[in-house]
């Protein structure tokens, strides 16, 4: 079984300088070195680097994925395997991470797209009333503001952006390679305590196609049936996010540091035995595929000897139906569930809160209503464009928006303890 030492180097400030180095929470970044790593791929013409810090009067638009820098300093495989190395099993040895730093992609796509392949804005708001719901607002973000190069399609360009960002993430984390970490945590589920219930985590991710996908060991998951991962594989970046749907996306830095994984590891050996992670794809096209996926997920949980399942999911609508079917299949297989849902209900929370449910979903935790509204104050710095995609509104001034248009709002609301309650 896998054992991972995760050494965390917290980043509180970052600045540009002659040499990339980490010292006491301060990261200095060599702009030219990062730039060279990005533009070595001709599909990217240029990159401008910017830094934003928590509390800045700054708003970032046209954000794609965000990555917390990780690098493997000892042990087999690498971090972000399938991208930064061969798709070999990760999750053991020693990994260094720049905790609280994000390599954030900011770009427009080279070609027009419509329908589900159109880009949807997810706004990173660094201060003011929106910051509470915006992921990234409590992090130091290195923005790669990119210009497309010789990519022949949006999918090609997206691939170039992802690979470049993961190269940069590895490069930055390497600055800590020979340093003594302020904090090392050891993650293992090898020791199982007799008498405690076995609990699996159902991690349903969205993979629908280009612009809305998740990568497992370097390959997108739309053809996948549910599969089993060791939680340490997630900590090492076995899953990479490529879902750019408004606020209901999970950026890579949340796949590598997910509130469900944290909750389960905290309770492991005390209240539960953490039995593993079942990664399922959400957003199947039809009832047949939905049922097939739910049945396989539940069967894997049975085979792992699970008594219970913590269930969380990414995105909404269609994928919510997949999620409910998994909850149902688990309950019918005799595995108790506790599941997280984000809610709808309209701007005042007076409408129906769930788009679908099964009668077996009797233990739901709320991560809040995502169509309640918030008014963002004007900002001094706007990065990524001048107008909001889709809405077309001028982006620097006051904006009145539903929470779900803030970056990765659903996962962040889960993490920060947002909960809808009856009034």
């Amino acid at each position, binding site marked *: 079984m896998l054992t991972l030492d995760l050494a965390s180097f917290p980043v509180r400030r970052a600045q540009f300088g002659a040499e990339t180095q980490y010292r006491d929470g301060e990261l200095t970044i060599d702009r030219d070195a990062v730039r060279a790593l990005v533009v070595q791929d001709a599909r990217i013409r240029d990159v401008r680097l910017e830094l934003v810090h928590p509390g800045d009067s700054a708003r970032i638009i046209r954000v794609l994925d965000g990555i917390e820098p990780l690098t493997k300093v000892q042990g087999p495989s690498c971090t972000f395997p399938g991208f930064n190395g061969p798709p070999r099993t990760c999750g053991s040895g020693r990994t260094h991470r720049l905790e609280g730093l994000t390599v954030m992609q900011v770009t427009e796509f080279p070609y027009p797209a*419509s*329908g*589900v*392949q*159109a880009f*949807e804005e997810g706004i990173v708001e660094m201060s003011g009333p929106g910051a509470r719901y915006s992921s990234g607002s409590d992090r130091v973000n290195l923005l790669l503001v990119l210009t497309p190069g010789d990519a022949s399609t949006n999918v090609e360009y997206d691939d170039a952006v992802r690979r470049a960002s993961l190269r940069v993430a590895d490069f930055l984390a390497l600055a800590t390679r020979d340093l003594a970490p302020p904090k090392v945590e050891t993650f293992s589920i090898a020791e199982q305590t007799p008498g405690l219930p076995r*609990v699996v985590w159902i991690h349903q991710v969205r993979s*629908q*196609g280009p612009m809305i996908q998740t990568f497992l060991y370097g390959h997108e998951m739309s053809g996948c049936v549910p599969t089993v991962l060791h939680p340490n594989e997630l900590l090492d970046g076995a899953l990479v996010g490529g879902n750019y749907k408004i606020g209901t996306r999970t950026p890579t830095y949340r796949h590598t540091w997910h*509130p*469900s994984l*944290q*909750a*389960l590891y905290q*309770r492991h050996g005390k209240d539960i035995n953490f039995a593993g992670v079942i990664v399922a794809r959400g957003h199947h096209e039809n009832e047949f595929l939905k049922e097939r996926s739910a049945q396989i997920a539940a069967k894997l949980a049975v085979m792992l000897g699970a008594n*219970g*399942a*913590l*269930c*969380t999911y990414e995105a909404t*609508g*269609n994928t919510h139906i997949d999620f409910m079917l998994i909850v149902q299949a688990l309950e019918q297989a005799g595995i*108790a569930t*506790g599941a*997280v849902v984000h*809610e*709808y209900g*309209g701007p*005042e*929370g*007076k*409408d*129906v*809160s*769930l788009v679908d*449910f099964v*009668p077996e*979903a*009797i*233990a*739901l*935790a*709320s991560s*809040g*209503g995502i*169509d*309640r509204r918030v008014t963002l104050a004007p900002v001094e710095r706007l990065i990524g464009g001048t107008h909001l995609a*889709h809405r077309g509104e001028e982006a620097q001034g006051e904006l009145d928006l*539903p929470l779900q248009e803030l970056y990765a709002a659903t996962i962040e*609301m*889960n*993490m*920060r*303890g*947002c*909960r*809808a*309650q*009856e*009034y």
Partner: protein
Amino acid sequence: MRIVHYMNQFFAGIGGEDKADTAPQSKAGTVGPGRLLQQMLGTEAEVVGTVICGDGLFADRMEETAPEVLRLIAEWKPDVVVAGPAFNAGRYGLACGRVCVDVERKLKIPAITGMFGENAAVEVYRNDVLMVPTATSALGMKDALTAIARLALKLGRRQTLGPAAVEGYLPRGERRNTQVDASASARALDLLLKRLKGEAFETEVPLPRYEAVMPPAPVADPTHVRVALVTESGLVPKGNPGRLEWVRASHWLKYDIAAKERLEKGDYEVIHSGYDASFALDDPNRLVPLDAARELARRGEIGSLLDTYYVTCGNHGILSEMAQYSKDIAAELKAHNVGAVLLVAT
């Protein structure tokens, strides 16, 4: 803090059903259970007046009686109005609900009442009135007034009330975002552990109740029926002239198709962002099947086709708003003698 207490003839000690026609009247200070209310309120608030009305009169002649009761209440210049509690008394419950609504809307003063959860007035007023749950009868008076007094003082101090479950009032059909300590994942795990231990647990998200939509019976004779094309697919003329939104559509639109045999590629776009629309851009008739409908009309398999198609965008639609758009569209279709709709969902 000035409190006015509203009650019926029975609790005011005037009489039972035989006195249910008691006219609205006003008395200084407390009456009947008002003394207990005063005790619960302590020194911070004073029950300055009591307004009384017979339940029968209030129910039978509400439109005349309610304004008179409101006038009497207003004369005392209250900071907070307490009505009842009404327990399981149906007419009294309705009177308390109406008094509270009028006080809040017309006098702009906070009001509170209490009643048994199954009282018919709860369904009528729960979304508009602050109510504490009570026992079925006056045996539960002390508990009811304790809860009412505590909340009345908060209202009088203009304090914001917390969630229903925390403050002890009946939910008013509104779910607000709050901040708690643990992540939702950690709380879901807590719920799971309680279940695994066989302990009592309470879901944070009660399952909604949907209005079931039953499929209608097949059209008996389509050959004489006028058919309309309706869709939530977000297919709109190029340039989206009606500014239909890509999520949470705020309206619906209709577009003329009278002179068209089919929808031509390039003339239309899809603003819905929840599905892969490339097939529809290639052939818009796959969302609004004008080509097939014209063919059916030519062959006489349908009577005729309406000259407009109706469209909204279902992506992240707010259920109550979508229901309203459907009603509006249906009303127009009816006015145009449409007997069947081809509804293309995505």
